[in-house]
Structure formats: C-alpha cells, structure tokens
C-alpha cells in the first residue's frame, strides 16, 4: 500500500490523534478522584505545617487519611470572610472542606471590588491560618501564614511554588531557615506594607520584616507582594476581630 499519498496521511494522523485523545481522556477521568484527594491532602498538610503542628515531611509520611483526620480533630472552624471583614459562610470542617484547592495556582486572585470571599482557618489552639497567592519569577508562588490569637503575631508560615529556581527561589519552600524567620514576627496593618521581605537584610528591631533570599530577588518580591496584597484583603476582618 502506498503510505505516502496525502489522503492516507491525513486520515492516518487523524485516527491516531483521536485514539490517543480517547485514551488520555479515559485515564484522566479514572484517575481524577485520586488526584483531587492528593491535592486536598497536600493543601491541608501545608496549612498544618504553617500552623506548626508538624513538619511537612512528617505529614507526607502520615498518608492522606491521617492528615485529614488530624485536621478535623484540631480545626475549630473554617470561615469565608468578605471585604468588609464579615463572616459570610462556614466551610464544612467535618468534611475537612478547604478553600482554594482548585485555585491552588491562582497567580492573581484580583480581589474584585468588595466582592471577594476568602478563607480563615481557625484551630482549637487559637491559631488562624490565612492563605496568600502571588506571582514569583517563573510561575505562581503561594503559601499559608499562621497568626496567633491576637491576629498580629506570626506563629508560622509555609510556602510553595510551581517552578522557582531550585537552590535560589526554591528556598521559599526548601529552606527551613527562611520559613523560621517568620516565627515570632508580627504584621503591622497600620503601615503601608503590613509585612516586608527586605533585600540585603531586615533592619534590626523591625518586627514586621525578614531578610530576603540572596540571588532570588524576584521570588522574594513576588512573595512579599502576595503577602501584602492578601493581608490587605484581610485587614477589615482582622480589625473587626480585634475590636
């Protein structure tokens, strides 16, 4: 058979593409529930790590079921708050419902004028965890910041990224000493920047600033932007809670 004529070539490639597409669609359908469960457990373990319940690697070793069980045992409530700082909705903690699993990679949430609803996870020990999302150098960066009962002191943080440079920007996730800097610092909503990541080192005694990662200016700036944008969005909620 002449396999080089045009009709044969077009029909052949079409058939191959359709078959491959069918195989991939089928695989995606079948594996989706498991992938989503993994993603959810990952989100929850990032929240738990930020709140200093355990280290991320330990949680990974626990397995999905135990992580979710632990989250259910320790969470007090999870709520969505709006721009005015009012609680508008509760997430179902019995089902370990989390916000943002599907928006995990949302580079810019955008905060539509006064219309957003963003989550606060409040644990039994009084710690509140807030998410942040932003744009790093190569792709999205995101993470969780855990605030103490006064909603001012930072008790912990965890960050992740999609494609920052390993060894440089990747340190926001991989370097425990970067994350450790957050512990004991505080946010200051009175200032233009509630929290700062300072290139060249944070000034001594400034309680709302930490050192940036050398060699990773764009990632540090992106993370700093994400933190400030999100803390700003939570400003009304934090003030309402403290009054």
């Amino acid at each position, binding site marked *: 058979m002449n*396999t*080089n004529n045009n009709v*044969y*070539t077009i029909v*052949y*490639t079409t058939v*191959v*593409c359709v078959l*491959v597409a069918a*195989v*991939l669609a089928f*695989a*995606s359908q079948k*594996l989706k529930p*498991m*992938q989503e469960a*993994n*993603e959810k*457990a*990952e989100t929850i373990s990032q929240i738990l790590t930020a709140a200093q319940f355990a280290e991320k690697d330990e949680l*990974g070793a626990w397995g999905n079921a135990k992580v979710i069980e632990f989250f259910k045992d320790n969470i007090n409530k999870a709520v969505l708050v709006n721009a005015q700082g009012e609680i508008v909705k509760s997430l179902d903690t019995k089902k370990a419902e989390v916000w943002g699993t599907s928006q995990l990679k949302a580079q810019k949430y955008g905060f539509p004028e006064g219309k957003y609803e963003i989550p606060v996870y409040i644990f039994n020990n009084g710690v509140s965890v807030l998410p942040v999302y932003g744009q790093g150098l190569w792709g999205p960066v995101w993470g969780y910041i855990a605030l103490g009962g006064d909603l001012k002191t930072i008790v912990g943080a965890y960050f992740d990224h*999609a*494609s920052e440079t390993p*060894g440089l920007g990747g340190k926001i996730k991989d370097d425990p000493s970067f994350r450790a800097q957050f512990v004991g610092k505080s946010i200051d909503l009175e200032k233009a920047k509630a929290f700062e990541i300072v290139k060249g080192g944070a000034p001594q005694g400034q309680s709302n600033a930490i050192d940036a990662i050398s060699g990773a200016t764009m990632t540090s700036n992106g993370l700093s932007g994400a933190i400030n944008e999100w803390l700003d969005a939570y400003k009304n909620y934090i003030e309402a809670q403290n009054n």
Partner: protein
Amino acid sequence: MSKFKDTILNPIFKGNPITVLILGICSSLAVTVELKGACVMALSVTIVTAVSSFICSLLRKTIPNRVRIIIQLVVVAMMVILVDQVLKAFAYAIDKQLSVYIGLIITNCIVMGRIEAFALGNKPIPSLLDGLANGLGYGLILIIVAFFRELFGSGTLFGIPVLSAIGYTNNGLMILPPMALILLGCVVWAQRSIDKSLQE
C-alpha cells in the same frame, strides 16, 4: 538467542545511552539529588521508552514516512502524560518533587532516538526489549550518580540517615547540578578505563 541477549545487554554497558551515547544528560543532572526520585525517574523513562518503542514498532509498516516523527511524538507524549497522571494519583509527593522533569521525558533524546534507530526497523518484541534495556541503562547511571549525591550531599540513602548518623557534615556542592556533571564525567571515565574499546 544471542541476538536477544545482545539487544538487552548492549544498552546497559557497551552502548549505554548516557555514558557512551551521551544522551539524556539534562534530566540525569536534575533528578539525581535523591535516590528515590532517581528510581522513579528511571522507572518512568524505562516504561515510556519500552511501551512507545513497542507501539511504534507495531505501527511501523503503516506510518506514513512524511509524518513519522509527528506520529512518534504523539505516541511518546501519550505515554508521558499517562505516567504523569498515574504518578499524580499514586505517588503525589514524588511527582511534586520531580515536577517538570516527568513532562520533559518527552524531550529525552533516548526515547525518540531508540524509536527512530531501532523500533521502526524491527519487530515489536525486540523493540520492547530494546526500549526496556535502554531505559535500564539510563536508570543504572541515574542510580549510581544519585547514590553518591545523596550519600555525600545529604548523608542519607533513600532518606535513611547513613553518614549523617555518624557525624558527617553534608557537602552542599553535591546537591547542586555542577557536581552531578562532574560525577557523571567520573562514571564515563571509569567505564572507558574498564572497556578500552570505548576510548576514542
């Protein structure tokens, strides 16, 4: 029978895709920080190479010559996506660690190279074995490099403390890609001093 034996053994030592053909260097530098990641990567590449060689060999008489590279790419891409999806479902942490490198298997010259050079001219079963053997040859080097990098870089093997348990200070250079290149060079050197016929 000796032809079969040759198909399997040749890519593992004398025609090793990494150390003799110098293919697939990029990914072998990137994923050899830890043994666990290296093993999963080796397994993934082996599966992708073997199955896509097999499929392309089955189709070899029907593929229109003018679009053969595209057809091969479609088959390889399908396998890579399948592997990625399966890892995401069953080994999420490892998939996250290997991140883009699983997707980049498609650009690994070993996969396309074996299909072009072997699978298109041979029957399905030898092609499957050839793909399998090349994947294993690739994996073997990956594991050798990862063994040294993890042992001296983090003091662990498969995450279990070995050197760090006896008070070894981790060598940060081992974790960075330049050291992987140097180690890879050492492996090439060792192999060529064992087998003089490989020297140029």
